[in-house]
């Protein structure tokens, strides 16, 4: 049973944490030069940013969080040494209608497939439903991103929309899938069986 004593920001191997303006830009800039990672994370044409520009990006992000109040941004960190592993974002929150969009990624390929994304999504869902009281959450995923599709299915997300050929990449067209999960469908602790 989860309750008020259960930490919102911790799981077995990871923690959700704040941005570290001194050390994170270097790390994220390295991820951004991995085009495979970028094409999983971004729908628009990808381009890498130098650490200095990543740092500037964090500053405008934090300004946006302060002004718009409809965005939550977490870094995903290793429990053992607080190393930056990825990011988990809840954005475009529509407070009136109780909907928000999720986005998450694990930066290094050797850190993927270890269940870290599962732990991060579990935390993000608990935050969305048990803390923000959202009615539903949404995730937009290109059809080639099989790892994320498998991940969201594990949490019982439903494929709701298939925007045909909405993405042109690698000289071919891809459908853009929209997955949704309602609070009533959210199973607390889902994904734990696998660990």
């Amino acid at each position, binding site marked *: 049973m989860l309750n008020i004593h259960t930490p919102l920001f911790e799981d077995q191997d990871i923690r959700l944490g704040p941005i570290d303006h001194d050390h994170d830009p270097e790390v994220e800039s390295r991820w951004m030069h991995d085009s495979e990672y970028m094409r999983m994370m971004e*729908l*628009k*044409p990808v381009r890498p940013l130098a650490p200095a520009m990543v740092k500037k990006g964090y500053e405008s992000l934090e300004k946006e969080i302060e002004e718009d109040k409809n965005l939550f941004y977490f870094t995903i960190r290793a429990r053992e040494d607080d190393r930056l592993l990825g990011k988990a974002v809840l954005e475009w929150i*529509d407070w*009136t*209608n*109780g*909907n928000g969009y999720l986005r998450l990624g694990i930066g290094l390929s050797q850190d993927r497939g270890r269940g870290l994304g599962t732990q991060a999504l579990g935390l993000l869902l608990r935050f969305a439903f048990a803390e923000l009281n959202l*009615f*539903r959450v*949404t995730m937009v995923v290109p059809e080639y991103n099989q790892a994320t599709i498998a991940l969201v299915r594990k949490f019982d997300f*439903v*494929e*709701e*929309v*298939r*925007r*045909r*050929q*909405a*993405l*042109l*990449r690698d000289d071919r*067209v891809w459908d853009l899938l*929209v997955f*949704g999960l*309602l609070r009533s469908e959210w199973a607390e602790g889902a994904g734990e069986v696998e660990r």
Partner: protein
Amino acid sequence: MEDLFKGKLVRLTGIDPEEVSKTFAQWNRDSEYMRLLNSDPPRLHSAKAIKGWLEKHIEAEPENTFWFAIRALEDDRLIGDIDLAVINWGSRDAFLGIGIGAREFWGKGYGSEAMQLILRYGFIELNLRRISLDVFEYNQRAMRLYEKAGFRLEGCMRQAMQREGQRWDIYFMGILREEWMKEYGYKSKTD
């Protein structure tokens, strides 16, 4: 080459913030209209506030936003607005929005013709690959209009809205360039 901006009932013109803001401020007082257009709670902005927003919005992203006033040809009266917002030039996909604020022009083919004009503009001037839109479950009139214009249903975000104590789905529709060419009997000159 065809006249892109003129049909038999309506023409598409540039937005004059001064004129449009006054008209929008009146249309916005029609709560049903506002609830068909937007999932945000309606606000009754002043004409002055709307004008400021329009000027900022039109100038902010001219390369991504293609926005027109819809005018009735008979007397050049402003009856609504229509826009294409290109969300991704890399994939050449845009979202379409339309509103006919003057109720006496509902159900008479004006909106339908404005849709035809903007689709043609999107596909043969902007060279888009697809055009997308979303529509609320309770806006059946608009859904019929979009189907008639050639849009296909691509799914729905379940219970994504709440109004009058009820949850409502948001439908997503899309039309591909090839579908538009077939639907409107358009032959490409480059194929």
